[in-house]
């Protein structure tokens, strides 16, 4: 058992060498690593935000808002389809309630044709069951009820979250922040981590915007008294206009404090944000801060056409369901370029421009968890942690040395190699070291020390029973290995369960623990045995332990 074949000796050393090399970049300062040639692989351990400082934000999709918007979009789609296509199908009494769309077909003879046409809008089968995205039901022979299916919603949110992730990515990159990590989590969440970012307010404001930009005509036929009562003319809808300039006749101004001014707008959208190709913060002739934008060819044409037909009338610029401004069309806007004014600061104009540029967020995202650690605090944690780590390790080294002399030295070498190997493996996986990860580290170091104490105490015991040196060592390793094995397997099981059921920090702990258990068995048992067997080849006369 103490005799190692040549190939085994080599593979032990090779393993240690490989992981040590992997660990090296993590110990080098950034400035040194930057000068290395490009072909040198540089795996490093990332420091978690709790140690390095930075911001963590957990965004969650607003499912309520999402299904409402999706339902409204489907309603518009149905209306357009029935009115535009030939033959035209007259529908009425369309409403959105209890998470479904209902409407009536006026001419009973068209019910079958209507159903046919609806089927093309209900989407093809999704998921494993091939279930449709919408179910269509006819009641009382002319009333249609369109309900979203669970599978359809799940697929839609999945798609939306993928798109949202990309939009988040574009928006954060537009801020020029370094190395953000943006990951989807579960069905409806996105994790954003930005190292070094200390004030996440701007970021949150930016990500909270859906940036749903629309241009609509103002319904100037509407009577402010009706708008105030919540009644809009047919084909129009009422929208809040928080910063409405006073005295314009077609706006309803609140009578009570705390109520927003309202405005009636034509339902139909002239141009939407999807047709933007650029947006940036700029100044107009009066040196006011505005957001300038450029439409694509199609959007530009439609904008030109509408402004030509409606010169002298107002139109509204709407962002996220709230009117930003409602200027008069003084002259047709033909170049496909325009400006949004409305009391912006440079910062807020810039944010809106970035949001518009990066595209519409397909779903409203809310910040449900946030944590920001200043780099100073992170640096302080690391510094104190390192000092405590060095003192703690020194204490272990001294105690092991005093207790077991030569075998203590071997155990200490193994301990250092163990730490380096864990760092190397973590670097290889590009894992992140967090505070709980350090707890995992402490536990594996404890387990490694315990393994060597077990072995060495067992050797003492066997010597005491009168065994010869070599036999005592051999028995010591063999007998102790059983307990070491069981102890480590139980810890791996526990780590595995924690990884499956745990959240965030608990998972980080589990990852480090699993890596650490493997390396600590390797170093504390195999590697020390290799060193011991090497020493035994010199035929030592005396065994002091």
């Amino acid at each position: 058992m103490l005799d190692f074949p040549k190939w085994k000796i080599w593979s032990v050393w090779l393993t240690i060498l490989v992981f040590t090399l992997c660990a090296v970049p993590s110990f080098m300062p950034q400035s040194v690593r930057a000068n290395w040639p490009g072909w040198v692989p540089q795996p490093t351990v990332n420091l978690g935000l709790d140690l390095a400082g930075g911001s963590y934000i957990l965004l969650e999709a607003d499912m309520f808002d999402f299904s409402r918007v999706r339902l409204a979009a489907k309603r518009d789609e149905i209306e357009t389809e029935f009115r535009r296509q030939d033959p035209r199908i007259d529908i009425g009494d369309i409403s959105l309630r209890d998470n479904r769309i209902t409407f009536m077909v006026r001419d009973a003879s068209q019910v079958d044709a209507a159903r046919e046409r609806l089927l093309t809008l209900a989407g093809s089968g999704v998921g494993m069951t091939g279930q449709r995205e919408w179910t269509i039901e006819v009641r009382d022979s002319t009333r249609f009820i369109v309900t979203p299916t669970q599978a359809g919603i799940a697929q839609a949110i999945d798609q939306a979250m993928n798109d949202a992730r990309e939009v988040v990515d574009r928006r954060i990159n537009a801020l020029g922040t370094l190395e953000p990590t943006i990951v989807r989590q579960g069905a409806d969440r996105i994790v954003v981590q930005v190292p070094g970012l200390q004030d996440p307010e701007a970021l949150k404001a930016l990500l909270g915007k859906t940036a749903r930009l629309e241009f609509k005509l103002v319904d100037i036929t509407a009577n402010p008294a009706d708008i105030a009562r919540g009644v809009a003319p047919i084909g129009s809808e009422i929208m809040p206009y928080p910063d409405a300039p006073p005295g314009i006749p077609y706006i309803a101004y609140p009578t009570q404090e705390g109520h927003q001014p309202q405005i009636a707008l034509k339902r139909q959208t002239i141009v939407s944000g999807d047709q933007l190709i650029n947006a940036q913060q700029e100044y107009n002739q009066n040196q006011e801060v505005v957001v300038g934008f450029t439409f694509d060819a199609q959007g530009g044409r439609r904008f030109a056409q509408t402004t030509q037909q409606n010169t002298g009338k107002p139109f509204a610029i709407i962002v996220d369901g709230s009117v930003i401004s409602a200027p008069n069309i003084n002259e047709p806007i033909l170049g496909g370029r325009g400006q949004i004014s409305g009391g912006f600061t440079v910062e807020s104009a810039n944010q809106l421009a970035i949001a518009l540029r990066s595209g519409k967020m397909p779903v409203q995202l809310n910040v449900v968890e946030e944590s920001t650690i200043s780099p100073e605090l992170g640096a302080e944690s690391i510094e104190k942690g390192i000092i405590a780590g060095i003192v703690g390790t020194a204490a272990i080294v001294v105690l092991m040395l005093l207790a077991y002399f030569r075998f203590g030295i071997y155990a200490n070498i193994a301990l250092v190699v163990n730490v380096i190997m864990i760092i190397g493996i973590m670097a290889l996986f590009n894992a992140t070291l967090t505070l709980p990860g350090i707890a995992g580290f402490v536990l594996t170091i404890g387990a490694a020390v315990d393994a060597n104490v077990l072995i060495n105490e067992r050797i003492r015991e066997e010597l005491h029973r009168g065994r010869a040196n070599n036999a005592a060592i051999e028995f010591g390793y063999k007998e102790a290995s059983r307990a070491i094995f069981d102890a480590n397997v139980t810890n791996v099981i526990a780590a595995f369960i924690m990884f499956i059921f745990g959240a965030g920090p608990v998972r980080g702990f589990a990852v480090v623990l699993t890596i650490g258990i493997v390396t600590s068995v390797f170093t504390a048992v195999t590697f020390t045995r290799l060193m011991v067997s090497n020493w035994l080849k010199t035929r030592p006369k005396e065994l002091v332990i």
Partner: protein
Amino acid sequence: MRPLKLVPDNVNIDWMRWRHIATAITVAMVVVSITLLVMRGLNFGIDFVGGQNIRVTFSQQVDIDSLRMRVDSLGYGESTVQQFGSAREVAIRMPVPGDDPEATARAVAQVRAMVETNYPGAHIASVEAVSGKVSGELFQKGAMALGFAMLAVAIYIWFRFEWQFGVGALLALAQDMIVTLGFFAATQLEFNLNTVAALLTIIGYSLNDKIVIFDRVRENLRKYRKMEIIPLLNLSINETLARTVMTSLTLITALAALVILGPDVIFGFSLAMLLGIAIGTWSSMFVGNGILIQFKVGPGSFKSEEEKAAEAKEQAKATGQVSFKDMP
């Protein structure tokens, strides 16, 4: 020069003589812990109850009362404003404001603005905000991870040893857990997700300890067929005593360094682990072994394969059956 020997060879202590007293102490510790948990409860961090926690470093010493009044005037309900570390460092904690997920973030922004306008030179060291929904999930997941990990480990021990050992380990781990939680209830140290990692570390250490002793018990059960269980347990504890003392001493020293010198974010965490080692050692000696006595583990629990085969043969002969192997 002789190596350091903390435990003399041939140590012979009658541990199990104190088992009744030890059981009484264990029960007392568990009862006190549960009482504390019920009466005082745990000081849950915002990971588990939601809300926000803001750490501010001021440029000079700050009047806590006026700061508290300013925070309360924001209208988010009862806030906790506490000094920690130096006199210039303050933690502001506020409850979760209603169901609106955005409200949490808004409250943070307001506190930030309030601090920056009223205290020039103040510096926000860290901000944490967790909405009520997420915190509930985190709590559930943390508790599940703890519970299932303990159960799975007990099942493994049952398979590797005998069921009595599995039950012993599970009860001993439960005792570790309850007493550590009781400690958190008594000190009102913050209990958060990082603390769960500390609890898991305690489970890990405690398991190592139990397995080392159980392994020796198993070995001795096979070796000394005629020995009574109580002297056998004493022998096993004494034989592993040198290891127990050495390992505990080493780890306690290392952890003490973390408690005294480490960053204050891990103070509670390191303290819990320090305590965990002591409790874990206690529970391996008295709870785990006590269960073994209770459930009458004896030499018959572990038989070698040959013995089992021989027994089967005996039985087969007695009932007149002959297996094919025995045929000439």
